[in-house]
């Protein structure tokens, strides 16, 4: 199955993935509605995007009391808005912190791989995100751990 591969070493923190994602998902540029989100490390000298790994268990999908989450043809776990009642259960069932509640629409939202053409991949100018046949793994952990020696100051607003 094709999945998103993240190479955090290449990320410069330009946030184009967040912008492209929110535009693809909502039709407007609102990083707060992006489902790929960039974190800063080492006092904002290194960065990494993070998003749903489309985990095998699909905790979100199995927890949903109304079967509002389905597997799309692209292989993504995808929220069907007309069925979702906005109960938020999926947002705590998923242990990866990658499915969110939209307070405006009263629905859950997550990465749907843009139907097989992820906007973040085309938007990234530095080869930090790929969409390919790959085993799901913790792309960000080792990178972030190396930079944990200097956790740095409080986070800047706008960087998730």
């Amino acid at each position, binding site marked *: 199955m094709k999945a998103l591969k993240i190479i955090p070493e290449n990320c410069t923190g330009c946030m184009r993935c967040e912008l492209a994602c929110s535009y693809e998902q909502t039709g407007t540029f609102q990083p707060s509605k992006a489902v790929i989100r960039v974190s800063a490390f080492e006092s904002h000298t290194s960065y990494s995007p993070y998003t749903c790994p489309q985990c095998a268990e699909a905790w979100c999908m199995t927890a949903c009391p109304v*079967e509002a989450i389905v*597997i799309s043809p692209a292989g993504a776990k995808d929220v069907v808005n007309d069925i979702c009642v906005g109960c938020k259960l999926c947002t705590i069932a998923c242990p990866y*912190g990658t499915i969110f509640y939209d307070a405006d629409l009263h629905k859950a939202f997550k990465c749907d791989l843009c139907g097989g053409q992820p906007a973040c991949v085309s938007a990234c100018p530095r080869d930090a995100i790929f969409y390919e046949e790959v085993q799901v793994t913790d792309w960000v952990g080792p990178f972030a751990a190396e930079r944990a020696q200097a956790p740095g100051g409080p986070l800047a607003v706008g960087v998730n």
Partner: protein
Amino acid sequence: MAIKHVIIGGGTAGWNAITTIREIDGGNSEIILVSDENPYSRMVLPYYLSREIGESHVFTASETRLGQLKVETRLGRRAVSLDPNANKVVLDDDEEIQYDNLLIATGSSPVRAPIPGADAPGVHSFWTLDQARQLAAELQPGTRVAMIGAGFISFTILDSLVQRGADLKIFEIAPRILPRMVDDTGAGIVAKWLADKGVQVQAGAEVTSIEESGGAKVLKFKGGPDVEADVVIMATGIKTNLEWLEGSGVEMNAGILVNDFLRSSESNIYAAGDVAEGLDCVTGEKAIHAIEPTAMQHGRVAGANMAGVETVYSGSLLMNIVGVLGLEIASFGSWDDPEAEVIEAVQPDRPAYRKLLFRGDRLTGAIILGSEGDVWTTNDVGILKGLVHSGNELSAWKEQLRKNPFDVKRAFLATGAAAALLPKTLLGRPSVPERDIAVSS
């Protein structure tokens, strides 16, 4: 002969067991479902009450679908006794059913405060679809609703009552609201939020009786003025449905004691959901977690074991989330552990609260409050759950969290929580949508 599974209770746990058995055996067993109610999900009822969804949306399976899954049904019927020696359950119409494997998934029922007038017409519980229908029918814009109890269930329907235009007042006997979901600080933030939005919630208010006067209900209080209402809702707690098992010999504490395979003291009797007292993955002890995710997980693991696929359950994680008028409230794991080391912070400028509870370097519990529209709330809710779920040692990041308890996302990423979580699965695959389960005829 095909193995015969009998499932008692068609709620979340029972239904998940059925679909899991069918995912595995494709129809090569006999399944009999005995349930007092048709299969539906209780936790969707608040959205039915608010009229955001119609009644059909709450059901998890239609009778047609049950038929397609080759499930024989006894709906609207109750199990009244169990004889494990004879592998037999008896129903309320005296029918006796033999089983090879039995699943007990009878859930819980609401209990009302033991006060005069508690059972009078116009006093409602909100637990079943029937009760939801009755309450929904009585609500008009301006209806004066008095809700007794300010716990989790009461808060799951608060928004719906407000949306329906009810004139709502809430009374809680405990000194503060949400006593079993958040701590004092959290409760204070919620109380202030509700007061600012004009919802009256009174803690430390003991209702002593409910009387009738000129077509209205009059709530009498210990040391307080009377309150008149058109409709009274009692959300004063629940009890597990175990009465019918009395004398059966199945080992019970507060719930049916189950092992890591969801088996009870009888090897061919399983229990799942609100009735089961099973492993808590955070404390390592047995507990009842009367929540939807536990019912789902128990149901799936019990179903797999019943279908002959040996599956070990690593335990359930207590977790609750509820939104009231745009404020998100969630707690995870051992959030009220008196022996935990606590790191907490409230933002001065907005209603945002994080409480992190540690045993050693492990995050064993958490509370989060924040506005639903706040990107930090949406971000941190799942991350906190993940940190507790992973059981990872936070080491150096614990000190960073002491400086800034809001820095949970980076702690999650840098401690490799995702790597720890990937192999921690239930069955290692999603549920198959019920419509896609192939059943041989």
